[in-house]
């Protein structure tokens, strides 16, 4: 059985052509304007180029859950940043159809002095939702977080568990066209992971495309049909996730 036969339609929502991300690192660390000016005057300003991504070509289709694997520093997070518009690539072209929403570090942008409700609004607007839309989702978020009795007290009085519940509820109550998950599945406990996977499957049936970066091969295997293996900023392999993972594991064992 090949995955290609199983894919009903190829309707790309993400298309990367020849995408490169180049960091220019100063030969020596320069931290201050003063040093910088001195170096320029001495004509001693040197840069080393470092490619975090090099000539990436990739298409991801609507409704896919796509996995990305690779060792630390292979460029996985950089690739996600390029897709979520955080990094503008230094070369190549990124084409995205639809809204992209990264699942942020839980509770990104939360403020301890604000109440749970106020933080839901703050977090929601950071994710790009207008106030009206947040009002429509508020009930669902409160319900899902199981924090109804505490929603109007300041966040600093929350336990870390409550904090995480609110963060998860407020960042996953939206159905983006493209959802980006960077290692989130590995931080939570077993129950959280289950909840997260369930939501992703729910999203997929709603037509959401998900991109998942993980070191947990089992998550990739169980969720993704296709995966890409990144190595030193280039794509080593794209294909059915079981084959990509097998090749990756073999290379790891050999190394």
């Amino acid at each position: 059985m090949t995955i290609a036969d199983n894919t009903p339609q190829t309707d790309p929502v993400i298309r990367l052509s020849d995408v490169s991300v180049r960091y220019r690192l100063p030969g020596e660390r320069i931290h201050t304007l003063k040093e910088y000016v001195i170096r320029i005057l001495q004509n001693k300003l040197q840069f080393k180029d470092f490619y975090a991504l090099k000539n990436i070509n990739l298409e991801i289709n609507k409704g896919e859950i796509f996995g990305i694997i690779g060792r630390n520093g292979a460029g996985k997070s950089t690739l996600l940043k390029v897709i979520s518009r955080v990094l503008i690539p230094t070369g190549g072209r990124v084409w995205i159809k639809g809204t992209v929403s990264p699942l942020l570090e839980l509770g990104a942008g939360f403020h301890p002095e604000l109440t749970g409700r106020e933080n839901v609004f703050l977090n929601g607007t950071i994710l790009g939702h207008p106030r009206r839309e947040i009002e429509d989702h508020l009930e669902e978020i409160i319900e899902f977080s199981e924090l109804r009795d505490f929603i109007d007290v300041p966040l600093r009085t929350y336990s870390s568990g409550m904090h995480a519940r609110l963060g998860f509820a407020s960042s996953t109550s939206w159905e983006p066209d493209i959802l980006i998950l960077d290692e989130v599945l590995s931080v939570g406990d077993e129950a959280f992971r289950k909840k997260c996977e369930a939501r992703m499957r729910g999203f997929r049936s709603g037509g959401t495309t998900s991109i998942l970066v993980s070191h947990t091969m089992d998550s990739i295997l169980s969720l993704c049909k296709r995966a890409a293996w990144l190595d030193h900023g280039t794509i080593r392999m794209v294909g059915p996730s079981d084959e990509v993972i097998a090749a990756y594991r073999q290379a790891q064992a050999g190394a």
Partner: protein
Amino acid sequence: MKTTENSIYDSAKRGPVALEELRGIYQYRDLIFQLVRRDIVARYKRSVLGIAWTMLQPLGMMVILSLVFSNLFASVKGYPAYILSGLIAWTFFSQTTSAMISQIVWGGALLKQIYLPRTSFSVSAIGTGIVNLGFSLLTLILIMLIFGLPISWTIIFMPVSMLLLAAFALGVGLIISTMAIYFPDVAEMYAVVLVAWMYLTPIIYPESLVPEAYKFWIFNCNPMYYLVKVFRMPVFEGSLPDAQTMLIASGIAIFTLVFGWFFYSNKADEFAYHL
């Protein structure tokens, strides 16, 4: 499911960045509102005196400065109110521009994770500043009443003065915070510059005391001289600024804002590489 089929992002087909940034701010206007709200509410909740601190800080400065300098500058009628009127304009400028520099550090953590209009945090810092400035203005009016100074109808001109001041502050803040992203020491240098700049602007001393020889430098070469003047005249002196002053003040404010906006927007793509 939402219908967002038409929202296509293509890195090869982007409009002029400064305009895109402007459109982004409009789209994310609810975020700006939430950020301003957060800053005000967090400040208000943190202490017993809450929002009063906003007013007490320039008020305290006013008391100290008037005690120290009242003999020296006895010629000014209602000297404490004179100081206060200049001081709240200055405080607005220095606080918002400094806030923008620190916001870019705080916001930087978010900008590395998710796309937001990069000017969001700067614009919200100005929004917060304007709210605080409004409260300070109320304090000033109170002080003027206490000192028996007349409040003139010209006070209705204040929104214009505040807008010009805000435009200038946003422009300066955008320029300085762009530089601070590349070189952290710029933030410290700017703090020093602010102190010197304040004393080079007629805030605690009357204009008439500036020696003829320095007038060119202190008045003509100092944008804040015009902006403070436009702010002070309608409320403290009860007169409207003359056409020339208005023209210069608006010219400076608009030019700085437009320049800062373009400067920042054009560098904004690189921020994520440096933050």
